[in-house]
């Protein structure tokens, strides 16, 4: 008798219809309720943490998340109709932020509810303050701080003092370690 493959069991509704091809480092932590959608590849680096309800959209292009980086709750990384999004190492995308940038340099932080437009390029060690906006296509030099009502300044302290950069990096590692203990890993759901 010809065996017909049994119909696949109904998936729970929270899984997206299209699961993108993911390359996830075994040490990364991805929460169960995180959402990864799209058809392009998604790469998640070593020790990265994706919080619950974070959204990674690989629909317009691929998404790469560097090591020791974190994507917080409700944040959106990736474009729907744009290009690739590359997030560097030790980067924090905080709660509610929307990042559609072409790339975000190492050590940068996009703070709560900030918006980074399509194709923008953020340098290293940048900082976008809460609710700030980076225009589409805008290029921020290394060590730029976006704050106030759209003001920009150069962060002299981090630029000129290597020990400050080292401190920030170490601080980010500690934060990542703390988050790893708090978020149960559901990486298996997304791997492979």
């Amino acid at each position: 008798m010809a065996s017909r493959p049994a119909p696949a069991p109904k998936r729970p509704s929270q899984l997206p219809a299209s699961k993108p091809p993911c390359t996830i480092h075994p040490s990364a932590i991805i929460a169960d309720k995180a959402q990864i959608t799209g058809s392009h590849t998604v790469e998640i680096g070593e020790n990265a943490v994706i919080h619950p309800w974070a959204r990674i959209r690989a629909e317009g292009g691929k998404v790469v998340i560097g090591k020791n980086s974190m994507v917080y709750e409700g944040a959106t990384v990736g474009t729907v109709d744009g290009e690739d999004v590359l997030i560097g190492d030790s980067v924090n995308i905080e709660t509610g932020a929307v990042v559609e940038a072409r790339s975000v340099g190492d050590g940068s932080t996009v703070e709560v509810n900030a918006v980074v437009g399509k194709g923008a390029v953020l340098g290293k060690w940048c900082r976008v303050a809460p609710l700030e906006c980076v225009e589409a296509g805008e290029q921020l030099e290394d060590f730029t701080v976006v704050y106030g009502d759209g003001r920009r300044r150069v962060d002299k302290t981090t630029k000129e003092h290597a020990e400050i950069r080292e401190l920030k990096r170490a601080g980010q590692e500690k934060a990542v370690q703390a988050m790893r203990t708090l978020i149960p890993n559901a990486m298996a759901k997304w791997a492979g």
Partner: protein
Amino acid sequence: MAATFPYTHYACPCSNLTTPASTSISAKRTSLIPVDAPEDSTFNPHDPRANYSLSPLDRLLFCDECEEIRCQRCYGEEIIHWYCPTCLFEVPSSGVRSDGNRRSSSGEEVEEAYILQCHYCDWSSLDIGVHFSKPTKITEQLAKQRKSRTSGGSSAAEAQPLSHDETFANLATFYKEQLSESGDPQNPYSNSPYSSPNNLARIMSLYGGLSVNALKKTREKPQPMREARGEEEGMLICSFEDKATDDALLQSMQNLDWANTTTAEQRLSAPANKGARLVDALWPVATRLRTRKCRRCHFCPQYLSYPDPKLKVGNLRYKIRALALNHIPRLSIRSLQTSYPLPNPAFCLHAADLLQRQPDIQPHITRQYILTIRNPILEPIRITLATPTTTPGRVASRVTILCPSFTVGPAGDVWDEALSSSTTSMATIPSGNGGRQAAMESLTGRGADESLDRQPEAGKVWERTKNSTSVVLEIVPGALKSLPGIVPKSEKELEEDEMEEGDDVLEVPIYVRAEWEVSEEHDDAGDRKGGKRIVEADGNVKKEMAFWCVLGVGRIGEGG
């Protein structure tokens, strides 16, 4: 002066203490009440000096011990404590004296050193090259570093202008010297009957004087105070010679953008920042502390207002709060003819209503007003009112109080009022027939159709509620312009005829006297006054209180 009519302003008794004004040139100026009884003189609300002693009820406090109203000039403010507005940390006054009125904040660690860093924009004190050896006493460390910077710079050149702090110190010393030389009296509350030390010295010198020095001082004419004349006295000379630094500054201001220049607010934040034109030159300034103040009567050390020092409480609570509102009989006036209730500006829904001016009062037409006196204390009081027949000032209006002497019931709990409903007798309302009309009467306080028919009668109270009594005032406003006469006026008379601002406002000064009796146990002020009270036969203490107040009725229009 209140913007809306009608208003009531109360006169503080401090106006009694001022010496009578010296004979002035214009005959229009009448002096305020001298120390004698008010029957001799009238409070003139149009006097330019009257504004200093009249205040609305919400500005007045009341001293229990002196049993008098205290206006803003009669109480002093003292600081209870200082606290940081952000973290509500209380700084003891010794800390304030040493550190200045600033609060220091903590910083991040860099190796063995500490820095100040902003969590928002990532500025740190390393940008100006400042780091600290320990996380405490930051203000002190900052001050030391600032001093070493500015003094290090100026010691290089000789002709450097003096620093801001030195200039300030020189100027302060100079002014102190000037004050002592010109003999300015510092103590406004001296008890001497002579109005100034110069007078006293002059009179003393007539009798031979005290000593050689005193005589010498009186013979020398005291120099008037002068201003600083040189750098050592504290004058800051602005010179145009230092073109090079100015040019460099202008050049850098052109190159850097607007965001890099300082705002006036930043420059004013600290004396160190006064000359800083570019953001790079700003010096970190600690958070300004806030204070909590208490108010004390000037004449006795009684607290009039003492807020609760506990900071964590959400609302500001008071340990002591003695408002005039709760101690003196309160007057208010309203027109008899207008509809009831009057629109209160606080409850206006549309902005247009606020701007609507009340119609002007027509001169020479008799109008009747209801004057309501409310009693805030727990005893019934006997009120006597007095007012001059014609209002003082340029425009003379005739005022008659139909019932100048009456009683007002005590204020009490709400329960008392509800339980003893029978005693809230409206004397003028006829007994109801138990129907709807009677119920309406008890709610609104008077008969529905009665108010139209009632006529004010002399000697009778208009309306009486539990703790307030209303009487009727008849006012005939005077005309603004005097009638043209046959004889043309001389220049002087024309001058007097000119209206000054505020002359068209109809203000009625009223002298209010309240008498009441307090049973001996309840009287607290008696012990403090040292047995001054007189105890009656039945164990009650007679108390009395009197003050002037001014009722603002309205503006008199043209059309006499």
